[in-house]
């Protein structure tokens, strides 16, 4: 009764959770599309898209092919990484079959096999085999996590939760079965229920079960009495054999039962079999209840995401449907980290140590931002990482869950810009050169690079050698295409290149940091090439931008208030 209640409770939580996540696909928004559209409108549009998809035989065909090759056989993972494929197959099929033939045995296995009993072979053996499979999968996943750990992929507690829960589930099941095998109480109860109270018969059956089935008894029956064993075997055939195979087939729990046998009798009063029965059942209920709130949810979201991808990338969706695909995509991310080793800018993380440069880490941050759970500092860090992306698209190509990551990055960059967390270029544009100069002076000396980093930085703008040769001949200004493109350089650019060089000579570098000329430089290097004095004008402008990025971080400027964060 209690356990049934727990099960219903878990199912309810699970369903509510799944519904909640589904609801979010049509209410949260990533990207500029579907602005102003409510749940109903977006849900309707998605349903229409689904209907159009289903009636198109070519698309349906490709979806079915995806279902077979990617959802059921993980061919796309096998091609990338056989180790991960074995892990995934072991976990997925181990758990799927355990749920079907063991957890739901009343509704599945017993319906198919009329003679089904959980303690009968092949069911007993197969259940243990599936247990081995899951343990193998969990072990391989843990080894891989450890090996991959490194600086590039940080494991989160939520990544471990799923593996820990699965381990608990399997281990509690194995211990449960081991205690059941050796339990004298269960033997006594069942002998009485099925055979009655005849003391002679019970003694004979006890002898046989102690010998062949490993039951532990407080007063073990005399060993080697062949007559007693023979009549015990006869009784076993009559009363037990239709439901009980020899436990040696339980490849996991029987060896454990042998280990537990010495403590079985002293512990029997506590009924460890019942304790573990409750434990196993409750862990299973817990896992079910956590399904929509943990990594387990990818059981639903990843296949959905893969099937949606089979119809084309996000660009092929109607604009109103794109945010739903994006939110669902984030739900399908398992933080497996397959994308990050292929990311073209992942090495940059080693110099700018912001993990939100890495695609595998950005998904979590983006999900938090979409939910509105992100602090200002979090948005700033996400912005810094996000705008390093060069759009190479390899993350999308290698995503095991079929997420259009490239589309996520592009659309979230628009969101970032809109909420005041745009790129460095956007940020600088929010103030005038004079205002930036003031901020720089007020915070002078605040940014100290670590000594080793500072030594390895090329300081052109601070080193008179690099600009003292400047004779203000204006050649740089005259060849600059940006200056040439303006009718009024003072208005559009604040200063010309040669004036920026002059600021450095006057030790007024701060005034140059936010100057439009510095930020509108196209890096064509004409100024530097043509300088008769060999001043590295373009390199200096680059360096001024670097310094402004370092000094004017979003975090350090309170003045830049996001408009709707």
């Amino acid at each position: 009764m209690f356990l049934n209640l727990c099960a219903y409770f878990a199912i309810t939580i699970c369903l509510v959770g799944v519904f909640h996540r589904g609801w979010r696909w049509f209410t949260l928004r990533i990207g500029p599309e579907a602005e102003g559209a409510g749940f109903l409108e977006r849900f309707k549009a998605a349903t229409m898209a689904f209907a159009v998809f289903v009636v198109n035989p070519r698309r349906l065909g490709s979806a079915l092919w995806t279902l077979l090759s990617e959802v059921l056989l993980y061919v796309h993972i096998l091609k990338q990484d056989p180790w991960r494929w074995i892990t995934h197959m072991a976990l997925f099929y181990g758990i799927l079959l355990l749920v079907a033939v063991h957890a739901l045995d009343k509704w599945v296995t017993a319906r198919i096999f009329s003679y089904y009993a959980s303690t009968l072979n092949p069911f007993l053996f197969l259940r243990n085999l599936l247990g081995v499979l899951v343990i193998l999968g969990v072990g391989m996943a843990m080894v891989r996590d450890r090996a991959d750990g490194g600086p590039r992929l940080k494991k989160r507690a939520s990544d471990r939760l799923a593996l820990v829960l699965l381990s608990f589930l399997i281990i509690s099941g194995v211990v449960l079965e081991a205690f059941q095998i050796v339990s004298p109480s269960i033997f006594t109860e069942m002998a009485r229920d099925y055979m009655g109270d005849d003391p002679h018969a019970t003694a004979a059956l006890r002898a046989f079960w102690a010998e062949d089935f490993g039951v532990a008894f407080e007063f073990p029956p005399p060993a080697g009495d062949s007559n007693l064993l023979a009549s015990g075997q006869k009784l076993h055939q009559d009363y037990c054999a239709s439901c009980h195979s020899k436990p040696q087939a339980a490849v996991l729990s029987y060896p454990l039962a042998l280990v537990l046998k010495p403590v079985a009798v002293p512990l029997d009063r506590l009924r460890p079999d019942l304790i573990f029965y409750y434990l196993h059942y409750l862990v299973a209920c817990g896992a079910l209840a956590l399904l929509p709130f943990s990594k387990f949810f990818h059981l639903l979201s990843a296949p959905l995401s893969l099937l949606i991808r089979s119809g084309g990338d996000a660009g092929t969706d109607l604009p109103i449907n794109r945010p739903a695909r994006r939110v669902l995509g984030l739900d399908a991310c398992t933080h497996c980290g397959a994308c990050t080793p292929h990311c073209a800018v992942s090495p940059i993380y080693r110099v700018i140590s912001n993990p939100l440069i890495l695609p595998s880490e950005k998904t979590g941050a983006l999900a938090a931002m979409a939910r509105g759970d992100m602090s200002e500092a979090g948005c700033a860090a996400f912005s810094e990482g996000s705008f390093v992306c060069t759009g190479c698209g390899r993350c999308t190509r290698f995503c095991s869950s079929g997420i259009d990551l490239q589309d996520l990055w592009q659309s979230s960059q628009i969101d970032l810009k809109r909420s005041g967390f745009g790129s460095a270029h956007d940020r600088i544009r929010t103030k005038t050169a004079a205002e930036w100069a003031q901020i720089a002076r007020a915070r002078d000396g605040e940014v100290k690079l670590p000594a080793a980093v500072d030594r390895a930085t090329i300081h052109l703008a601070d080193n008179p050698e690099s600009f003292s040769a400047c004779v203000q001949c204006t050649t740089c200004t005259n060849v600059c295409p940006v200056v040439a493109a303006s009718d009024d350089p003072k208005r559009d650019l604040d200063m010309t290149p040669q004036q920026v060089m002059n600021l450095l000579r006057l030790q007024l570098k701060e005034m140059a940091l936010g100057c439009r000329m510095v930020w509108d430089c196209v890096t064509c290097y004409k100024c530097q090439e043509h300088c008769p004095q060999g001043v590295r004008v373009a390199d200096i402008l680059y360096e001024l931008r670097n310094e402004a990025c370092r000094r004017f971080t979003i975090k350090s400027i309170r003045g830049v208030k996001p408009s709707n964060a």
Partner: protein
Amino acid sequence: MRYLYFPGCKIAGNLPQYDWATRSVLGVFDITLDSTELNCCGYPVRDIDFTAAVFSAARILAIAAKKELPILCPCKCCFGSLKHADYWLRHQPDLRHRIDTLLREDDLSWEPGVPVRHLLTVLVEDVGLGRIREKIRKPFTGLPVAVSYGCHALRPAGVTRFDNPLAPTIFEKLVKTTGADPVDWPLHLDCCGHPLWGKNDRLSLKLMENKLSSAHMAGARALITACTYCQLQLDTVRNGQETLPFLYPELPAILVTQFLGAAMGQSTGALGLERNHIALKPAK
């Protein structure tokens, strides 16, 4: 001849025709390309952090050193970024020390002298104009074309060592093998505007317009590029401006290997010509 092929980040997703056409043309001259997956060249991040840019580029130089292959860049910005890294690593011992430390974690190391070649240099110097001329089947005889040099291979010449920065000739020499007639145009060494695309769109488009107008006034009938970003700007960005009138629709932008391939009689499909927003009209 074998090269470590470094297409950079943008070609695979945004300009696959540059990859197809380049492979198609180089294939004719028995050039094989090592297509190891490589990281970003560092050019886009240089605005933010110079060391991050140098480290990115140094990884590629180090991988090439390990494979003992010269690097082939179709993109001028990638090319420039690798050259800058090589230059500063040779001239700044402290920077080199820091980069070396980072590279060692990946079991790599930088050494000076890894050859970095731009596609134009490979075609003109490694393949040779004579061999290219032999393969021309459908010449563009007399077609006035404007070659756009792109900034980051040409300048700063002390770093890139690509061609004479004030009067380069390599691109014209190559294009002449097809019978086309490169025109003199004032802005052939100027910026296409793409570095500011997404940062200051108005200025970016203005620079592009200046350039297009200069080529148009010189009588060019096609604009030939040899850089991923130049082509993205002069073809993709130009076409994507729905609010503006399409600038100079009679002046298609075409990639150098598409142009060469077409002159060699290669198929439209192999060169990805159908992906260009304005088709090149045959020579009259």
